[in-house]
Each structure stands twice: as structure tokens, then as C-alpha cells.
């Protein structure tokens, strides 16, 4: 059992939690992830490690309630327990030796991009962050990101905060203004990572993306998370989750992520009804 040490709502759908896991905190590095299972009936779900503190013995996760498991987790409070919490999994990012990096996050992806920006910054790189959101009310981690970069550019699709437009527009304008990036990191929805990679390919800038395929064990024993990179099949949980954005088959990843879409939608709707009026007793709480 793993204690939830603290909880903070970052916006309507995104929650930050600090989990007591001293052994994981000691080893966790940027780019790695954990797998949690809330209770006996729950699924195993991967979440990227957003931060870790070896002294406090804590691992921070930031997640959006998109499915049943994350929805139920978001309803837990500080002092509650998570049944299983496994990690650190995956390969750590290699973030040494870069001079000028641009870290791009999309929505909740900013939480996952944040530790990479922090590590690049600590390694002495000049770091620009482009943080993209749909609109003002879902902007997260603004102060945290500001503290680990040289320039923070916030974009919103509807222009309600920061600059109006997509992260790709901002990236292009920064490059065209003479910024010489030797690394771009893009983390967010698959289409966003795909289009960022398309932009940087034209400029020949090395680009890393963090992939989010469906996973079960997260240790390389099932291949459920397989992705095609450079024409080869790789397991994201052990070979990644970070890969060269110019080599990833994003279209196949999008298709594979829709594997259980119908079943997930039905379950999510059922979960959302819980606590909303005449609750359906599911026996899963």
C-alpha cells in the first residue's frame, strides 16, 4: 500500500499527487514512469513521474482524469492509499550536453515535459518552454515551469491567455527568429507530437517525444505497448517511452491507442455517474 501524501487540483480535470515511495524516489529520473493499480479490481495504468524528492521519499504524479482508473484516482484524498505503485520504469532521458533546448508541452503533457526541462536547465542548457493549452482555464504549472527555463511561452488555441495559436506556430516563429535549438522535446497528445516532429524535421533539429501506448506490465513481458520506430517494432515500456520523433510511426500509435475505445467509453460513463445523484452500486469502490 502506498500513501497519498498530498493532493492538489491543478485544473478541473488535472490532479497532482505526491505518493510515498522512498525506494522509487531514490532512483527516479526524468523520462521514467510508474504503473499504479488503485485497488483489487483496478487496471494497471502507467503515469510519467513528474517529480521526485529522495529526502521526502516522495514521487509526484500529475494526471488527467481521462478513463475510469484515473477518474477513480482523482477522487482519492491525501491520507488515502494506492494498492500498487511500481517503478521507476522505462529508460531515463539522456539530457546532457545540450546547449539550447526547446521543451514543448501540450495540455497535461506539460507536467511530463516539466522534469525534462528542469533537468536540462540543471545541466546548464538554455531552455525555452512552449506550453500549449486549449484555453486559459486549463493552464497548469506556470510558476513551476517559469522557474526551470529561460523563456516560457504560453499558447492557447482560443487566445484567452498568452499567445493565440498552436505550439507548432510558436516553434516555427522562434526558429525563424534565429533561435538555434540543438534539441526539441515534445510531449502531449499524439497529433501534437507528430506535427512538432514534422516541423523540426524540416530544420534538422533532433527531437524527442514521449509515447503513451497502452501498457499492462510495463516491464517488457507482453508487447502490448509496441510501437514502430524507424520501421522496427519496439516496446515503449523498456526501449522508451522516449523516442526520436522523426522515426516514430504516429499514425499506427493513434490506431493502437484506440484498441479498447468502446469498452473504455462505456466504463468511463459509468464511473462518471458515480456520486452524481442516484448512484449505481458497482462494487468496485
Amino acid at each position, binding site marked *: 500500500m502506498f500513501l497519498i501524501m498530498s493532493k492538489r487540483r491543478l485544473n478541473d480535470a488535472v490532479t497532482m499527487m505526491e505518493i510515498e515511495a522512498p*525506494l*522509487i524516489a531514490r*532512483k527516479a529520473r526524468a523520462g521514467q514512469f510508474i504503473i499504479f*493499480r488503485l485497488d483489487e*479490481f*483496478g*487496471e*494497471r495504468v502507467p503515469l510519467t513521474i513528474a517529480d521526485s524528492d529522495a529526502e521526502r521519499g516522495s514521487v509526484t504524479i500529475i494526471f488527467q482524469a481521462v478513463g*475510469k*482508473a484515473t477518474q477513480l484516482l482523482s477522487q482519492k484524498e491525501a491520507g488515502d492509499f494506492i*494498492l*500498487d*505503485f*511500481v*517503478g*521507476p*520504469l522505462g529508460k531515463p532521458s539522456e539530457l546532457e550536453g545540450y546547449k539550447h533546448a526547446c521543451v514543448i508541452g501540450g495540455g497535461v503533457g506539460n507536467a511530463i515535459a516539466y522534469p525534462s526541462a528542469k533537468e536540462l536547465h540543471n545541466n546548464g542548457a538554455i531552455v525555452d518552454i512552449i506550453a500549449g493549452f486549449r484555453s486559459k482555464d486549463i493552464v497548469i504549472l506556470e510558476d513551476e515551469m517559469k522557474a526551470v527555463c529561460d523563456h516560457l511561452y504560453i499558447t492557447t488555441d482560443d487566445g484567452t491567455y498568452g499567445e493565440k495559436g498552436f505550439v507548432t506556430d510558436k516553434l516555427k516563429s522562434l526558429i525563424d527568429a534565429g533561435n538555434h535549438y540543438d534539441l526539441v522535446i515534445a510531449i502531449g497528445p499524439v497529433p501534437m507530437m507528430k506535427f512538432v516532429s514534422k516541423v523540426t524535421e524540416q530544420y534538422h533539429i533532433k527531437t524527442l517525444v514521449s509515447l503513451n501506448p497502452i501498457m*499492462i*506490465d510495463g*516491464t*517488457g*513481458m*507482453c*508487447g*502490448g505497448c*509496441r510501437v*514502430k520506430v524507424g520501421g522496427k*517494432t519496439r516496446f515503449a515500456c*523498456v526501449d522508451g517511452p522516449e523516442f526520436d520523433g522523426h522515426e516514430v510511426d504516429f499514425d*499506427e500509435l493513434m*490506431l*493502437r491507442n*484506440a*484498441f*479498447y475505445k468502446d*469498452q*473504455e467509453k462505456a*466504463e468511463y460513463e459509468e464511473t462518471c455517474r458515480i456520486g452524481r445523484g442516484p448512484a449505481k452500486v458497482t*462494487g*468496485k469502490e
Partner: protein
Amino acid sequence: MPAQDPLVRNHNFKEVTTGYTPEMAVEEARRCLNCKTKPCVEGCPVNVHIPEFIHLITEEKFEEAFQKITETNSLPAVCGRVCPQESQCEARCVRGKKGEAVAIGRLERFVADWHREHASRPPEKAVTNGHKVAIIGSGPSGLSCAADLAKAGYDVTIFEAFHTGGGVLVYGIPEFRLPKAIVSDEINNLRAMGVNLQTDMVIGRILSVDELLEDLNFDAVYIGSGAGLPSFMGIEGEDLIGVYSANEYLTRSNLMKAYNMEYATPIRKSRAVAVVGGGNVAMDAARTAKRLGAEKVYIVYRRSFAEMPARKEEVEHAQEEQIEFLNLENPVRIIGDERGQVKGMEVIKMKLGEPDSSGRRRPVAIPGSNYELDVDTVIVAIGTTPNPLLKKTTEGLETDRWGCIYTKDNGATSREGVFAGGDAVTGAATVILAMGAGKTAAASIDAYIRHKKAALSRTEI
């Protein structure tokens, strides 16, 4: 042995065979000739005292029979169910030369089940000798190594990557062949003997082998991490939606209980399934798919029935449950629709050619015999290799080109104080061979630690 009706059981996950009654067990036990030479014992990888325990059954001393078995085998309820007895103990039975061999496996199972239902006292905890051993992996080899070391007084900690102990016994072998309550009982017995099981611990990530030895002061480490890395065929269409490794399909169903609607993990609702391979894993996947509601389930295997590595009983059970066998056929490519979903598999017919280096006749494709099999799910069960994580994170741990850990006969690896056994060493094999390797390593670890202690006390003088 009594069993559920095939056309009923292929819609549920309850155990297929219901086991002997005491009367049936005694009657079967009486068939044992109690030979002086005991060839059956040689056929058993952990050398269970077979004629002795069977004789105790004839006297209705079931608890004594259990004690006799557990002198050498710590998981009899498991072994009695999943061992391929026809190629081990029962293959050597003298009665098998004319007529049927004594049903040693079924008798072992009966005794273990009887003990589970009637035993009153938990196993005893040995007096501690003050030495600590770490075991990586809680599958059959880790469990049997832990049991022997705990009996010898060691302070044993098992580190398991999954949230439940048991390895392949919980994620691989389905409920209808090995009820999970039995596995958890066996593990609880080990706990009662003082073994500490830590789940959610991926060694190589959260802690390294070196940290176990140096920082956590374990005197020795046993690697029983199995062969969990699935092989794929490398054919077109293998990344389509609806293609699973058998490991993934079985893990979803067995470990995550996707077959039970109360559990959240999803699994594909298939109409027609092709399972590629001819081993026990292929049989398990096919029979699981049938139970999950598929109308048609095919086993696609490139050789003939005679070469099939699966247990005979499982093949027969699968046939009774209306699994269709397409032997001497081989997949060429998997065909998808515009949404990336599997809609068929192109198959080519094979014939057996000349024997290859392994002595088996090599299957050869018959040109032009291709046809399309109408399936919406493909499960690949063509084998597994050891996971490379421990090799990558443990300096000086030698492996062969398939990633199998190199060991001497006593289970010692190229690293001092580090032992290994089971599928991590041999590649995918059987439960009982893994248990045998765990026992061998336990004896070697005991000898190693005693030797080290003796050397230490000499230098102190």
C-alpha cells in the same frame, strides 16, 4: 478422472477436472507395483519419493503421504496439475509398458488437495541461521528455492515485479487448469515458513543486484526471473489492432481477471481467433479465447500433431472443447482493414521435409497453397526468451546469445554470490524443471554461504 462436460466448461473458467475422490485415489494407488528400482523417481525432476507416498495412500494415510511428497516438492498441488507426467514420472512407470501407467500426477494432486482441505496446523518455521538470501522472481523456481532455504533456516526475501506472487502460475496458466486460490495457498504456506514476499519490485530498476549484495547485505542472490519476453513472427500486419502476444492475452485474462466483469481491465471480444503455436501456452490461449466467447478458435501450427510440444491432456481437452487444429499450416501475413483492425490472416500449407539438426522433420511451405483465414484476433504463442533487464543492469553477468543466463551445474553464475535457475537459464521450459533448478540452487547457496562462513572464521583465528 471426473471432468466438467466439454461443451459446458468451454464457457466458464472453473477447473476442468474435479480430481479423485478418496475411494478412487486408493483404488488407483493399489495399481502401483512398488518396484525395487523405482524408475518413476528418476523421471521426476525433483525426485519425489513416489512409491512411498503412493503406498501411504493405499493405507489411507493421506496426511503422511503429503509429508512424504513435500520432503522434496514444495508445490505438489501445482505439479500434480501442470507437470507433463507422460514424459516424466509416468513415462518410466513399469505398468505403462503394458497398459496404463499409474496416475502419479493425479495421486499427487489428490494428496495435496486433501491436505489443503484437512490440514490443521501451518508449516513450521525453522530456527534462523542469521543469513539473508534474496530471490528475484516468485515463479516456480523462486518459490521452490525459497522453500528449501527457509527450511534450512535462511532469512529469505522474494522480490516480485508484479503485484501478485506466483509468476507464470498466476499470469500464464489459466484458472481452468490451475485455480489461483491454490497458488495463493502455496504462497501463504511459504509466508508461514517465514519467507518475505515483496511485490511491485522490479529488480534492475528500483534496486540492482549489486545493491542487494552490497547495501542490503544479502549473502547471496538467486535469479529466477523466467523467460517473459515474447517473440513475434516478424510478418506483415503484426502491429494491427487485434494481434496479441500470448503473454499479453493471458496476463489480461489470468492476472488482471479480464474475464470477470467486476475487474476493470479490458480484453478483446473476439468472433474468430487464430492462435499461432503448438505449445501449452498456445493451448491455454486458445481455450481462454473460447471461454471469452469466440465462436471459432483455431490453433495454427506449422508441424504435425506428433511434433506438438503441448501436454497430451491439454491437446485432448482443447479438441473436446471444439478448438480447431490447423496443423501443417503457417501464417504468411495478417490482414487489416482501414481502421487498422485485424480482418484475416493469410496462411500457407506445409509438409514435413528432411529432419533438421534437432532431429525433427523440418516443415516446408507448399507453394501456391495460400488461403485467407477469416479471423478478427491473432494470438502469437511461438515462444519467449529471458527479459534482458537484469543482464543489462548487472555487470559481469554472462548470458548466451539468446539472453539465457550462463550457470554451472550447481546454478552458480559468472558473478560470485549470484545464482540462477529456471527459464532465465534454460529459456522457456516446464514448471517442474524450474522447481528442480530452484532446489539445486538452494543447496548450492547453502554450501556457498557455509563455505564463506567457514573461511571467515578461519581468518578470524
